């Protein structure tokens, strides 16, 4: 018998599940090339779900359902809300591109996307190792299928294969680590694990052994060095629309998973995992930024840029002070990472949106050179892209700057002297980062266009793209609201 609270907690996810099935069935009757009906129904569903999640987030209550297996808290609900919106935006950008490439012969794009989103939702709200793992598997299995959606394309299929093999291995890591933790603490429940570790009765060795595998699995999903190898290949090989699907919203879920496992579950082991995260982030910043310089393919460049950006996220997570008694600093650190992930997704959506827009029928806009002279073809879209790239580079007054600022501030505030050195290292790496972002801007603004044709976009894409790009700028001028939102959500999670 399911109690009332469990219903409340699970309702948005249930709506997703039911509607995914309904949409799959309804799509059988849709014959148009652009699958208009399926598209609209999917967007309406996602809008309703996003609204429900926002409403739950605003209520501020923390609820546990299904015998503590799932949790509904402000952090989770906001992340779910943003992930839902991100998937919506992705689908808006992706539809035209997919239709031209035979990916809309059936409605799988929509159904699989909803299932992927459901997986993210479950992951984000999981309060139990197995629930989190299940959510993760639902997400990744849907993603494998999405990458392979263009089944007659050799690169896409190869990317799907690579993604599948490596992803399965990462899941294996994670599961192995979880089994260790289960073996040591005797529980799958995150809260119970926390209590067991905090009691100090558990053998440290076994726990840390499990922890290493969990961190490796997480790093794999997030794409941190040295577990990053799949990212460039999959980003490049997958159809651009799907690259956005796996490079956008799932980052939010991956962040939530890290919060659930490492912070909520294993905060008493922070001394151990902080060091691991530090190594991962330093490596990511170094490799991501240096390797991105050498790329000529935009998608591959953005893949390496993602790796370096995730380095910053990890830097934020590792800055939480645990030894001291100041929970404010800890909350600041985690909320800075949350802010970073959200703004990163926002920016990624717009920049890939432009790439999707430029990829016309029979033409893939993949090389940096394909963006040449975009400013002459369409000042508006060049402007949106420039704003996104500058934001990724962390130039004020764009939102990416405050993300970097928040992380660096958390890092410096953590009070360890060598963290100041890490901060200097991070800013020097972002200087290198600025170079390759600027190079794309250079191609768009300083080079002459290859074709003079102006860029045409359907109304829905144009509106969403303008709002998306505008937000990058507006949130840069007024970042206070989103920063406060992240801060409150994290403080509530930490129980202060």
């Amino acid at each position, binding site marked *: 018998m399911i109690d009332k609270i469990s219903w409340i907690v699970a309702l948005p996810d249930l709506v997703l599940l039911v509607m995914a099935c309904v949409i799959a069935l309804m799509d059988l009757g849709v014959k148009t090339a652009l699958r208009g009906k399926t598209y609209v129904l999917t967007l309406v569903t996602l809008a309703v779900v996003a609204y429900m999640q926002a409403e739950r987030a605003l209520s501020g209550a923390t609820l546990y359902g299904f015998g503590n297996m799932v949790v509904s808290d402000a952090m989770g609900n906001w992340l779910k809300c943003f992930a839902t919106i991100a998937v919506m935006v992705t689908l808006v950008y992706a539809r035209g591109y997919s239709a031209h490439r035979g990916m809309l012969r059936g409605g799988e794009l929509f159904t699989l996307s909803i299932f992927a989103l459901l997986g993210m939702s479950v992951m984000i709200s999981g309060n139990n190792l197995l629930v989190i793992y299940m959510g993760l598997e639902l997400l990744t299995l849907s993603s494998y299928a999405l990458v392979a959606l263009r089944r007659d394309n050799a690169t896409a299929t190869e990317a799907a294969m690579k993604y599948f093999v490596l992803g399965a291995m990462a899941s294996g890591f994670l599961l192995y680590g979880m089994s260790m933790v289960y073996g040591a603490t005797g529980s799958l429940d995150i809260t119970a694990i926390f209590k067991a570790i905090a009691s100090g009765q558990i053998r440290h060795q076994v726990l840390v052994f499990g922890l290493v595998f969990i961190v490796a699995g997480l790093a794999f999903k997030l794409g941190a060095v040295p577990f990053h190898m799949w990212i460039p290949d999959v980003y490049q090989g997958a159809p651009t629309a799907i690259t956005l699907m796996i490079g956008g919203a799932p980052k939010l879920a991956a962040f939530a998973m890290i919060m659930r496992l490492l912070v909520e579950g294993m905060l008493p082991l922070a001394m151990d995992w902080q060091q691991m995260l530090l190594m991962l982030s330093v490596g990511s910043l170094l490799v991501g930024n240096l390797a991105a310089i050498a790329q000529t393919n935009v998608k591959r460049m953005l893949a390496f840029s993602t790796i370096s950006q995730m380095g910053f996220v990890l830097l934020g997570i590792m800055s939480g002070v645990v030894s001291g008694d100041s929970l404010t600093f800890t909350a600041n650190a985690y909320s800075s990472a949350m802010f970073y992930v959200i703004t990163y997704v926002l920016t990624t959506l717009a920049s890939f949106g432009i790439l999707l827009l430029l990829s016309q029928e029979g033409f893939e806009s993949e090389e940096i050179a394909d963006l040449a002279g975009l*400013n*002459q073809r369409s*000042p508006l879209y060049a*402007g949106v892209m420039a704003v996104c790239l*500058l934001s990724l580079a962390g*130039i*004020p*007054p764009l939102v990416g*700057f*405050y993300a970097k*600022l*928040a992380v*660096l*501030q958390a890092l*410096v*505030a953590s009070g360890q002297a060598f963290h*100041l050195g890490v*901060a*200097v290292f991070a*800013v*020097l790496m*972002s*200087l290198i980062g*600025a*170079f390759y972002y*600027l190079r794309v*801007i*250079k191609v768009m*603004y*300083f080079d002459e266009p290859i074709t003079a044709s102006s860029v045409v976009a359907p109304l829905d894409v144009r509106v969403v793209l303008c709002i998306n790009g505008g937000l990058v700028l507006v949130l840069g001028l007024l*970042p*206070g609201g989103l*920063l*406060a939102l992240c*801060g409150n959500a994290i403080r509530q999670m930490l129980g202060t």
Partner: protein
Amino acid sequence: MGLLSLAIWTPIAFGLVLLALGRDEQAPAVRWLALVGAVVSFLVTLPLYTQFDTSTAAMQFVENAAWIDRFNVKYHLGVDGISLWFVLLTAFINVIVVIAGWEVITRRVNQYMAAFLILSGLMIGVFSTLDGLLFYVFFEATLIPMYLIIGIWGGPNKIYAAFKFFLYTLMGSLLMLVALIFLYTKSGGSFDMATWHALRLDSTSQTLLFFAFFAAFAVKVPMWPVHTWLPDVHVEAPTGGSAVLAAIMLKLGAYGFLRFSLPIAPDAAHEWAWLMIALSLTAVVYVGLVAMVQEDMKKLVAYSSVAHMGFVTLGFFIFIDLGMSGGLVQMIAHGFVSGAMFLSIGVLYDRVHSREIASYGGVVNTMPKFAAFSLFFAMANCGLPGTAGFVGEWMVILAAVKFNFWIGAAAATALIFGAAYTLWMFKRVYLGPVVNDDVKALKDIDAREFLMLALLAAAVLWMGVYPKPFTDVMDVSVAQLLKHVAISKLN
């Protein structure tokens, strides 16, 4: 909305309107709108001067509102005697630059004008903010329009110049960002500059902070040996870009020294003053010599800028009020004079499309009016009494002699080198017989160019003959700053 907010956001608003409007077919309308925007933006800064109270060192026209609560960042604006003139100077130069780009720019006119208007708003923001993070936001944001200005409308090697400009200055600023965050943490969560000024800091922290700020501001000034980006960038930038860069952007760095390095780390500033003086003297003497052998007019003026900015930093780091005021006066004077020099070169370049000194000779025969203006600006550049260039240099040299005779003597040699490279260039370009057909075909300046140069000439002359309005505004604030810097923060 306060006067300062108005001064910042009026040009930016006009810039955004220009971006939204306008294709190249409507270029005339775009130009007029840009001119109206620039003039209005200048007019709204005038009340700042007329209502300024010269008897107090306190910040005036203060606006303070919450901006980002999470970091306790305030939208905190205000000007004192140190910053007031730069707000007006920026708005003034902006008008000149819009006039200068009137017929020259034919491609993407609206973006060109918008970039300059937005840039001017951002730079006014730098000069009028009292919050550390807001300062950084404005300071960095100026890179974006300048990068585009150089890259889109620049010369043949513009890409290299645009990247060099952006990355070189970004490197310095990023270290400053770490310093700002460090100060934020040290001060218990405040980005307020006044709080930082009062903050006690130990010797190591001060040294680290001093050099982090040094990285940002020395690159921007630019001081020797991190000046190498400036000649490359000036050569490739369009005329308007060069003028704004020399007239205003370099001042952002010098201004930063006064707002951050000196008051926040006074002990480190005193400790490392010898280094700063040495670098400044090197800039004055060595770079002055380098300027002499340049073949390219823009490069020559660029090196001359480095040398002149050496005077500014020299004036700051001898900690005598005459020197500091002299440095500030020199900054304003250099704003007028270097802007005018670059615009003059632009006038020639628009006609002949060469910056090489060797492509000219005897210009005075075909462009007498223009040559008269150029001679006047050249005299100002070498510091002839009665022009703006004289006042600041003279004050700094006097102060330097008071501080140490030999330093003063070394600085004074700059007057000789300055005269040498400027007048030699003038001789080779303007005097002598007409050397080639290009020069023979030259037409003298039209009304637009005359207006632009006349405005600048008037400013240069006014400042040279009657510098009192400039120094009066500064005196109290400079004295206050020196008093603050003299007190150790260590114990």
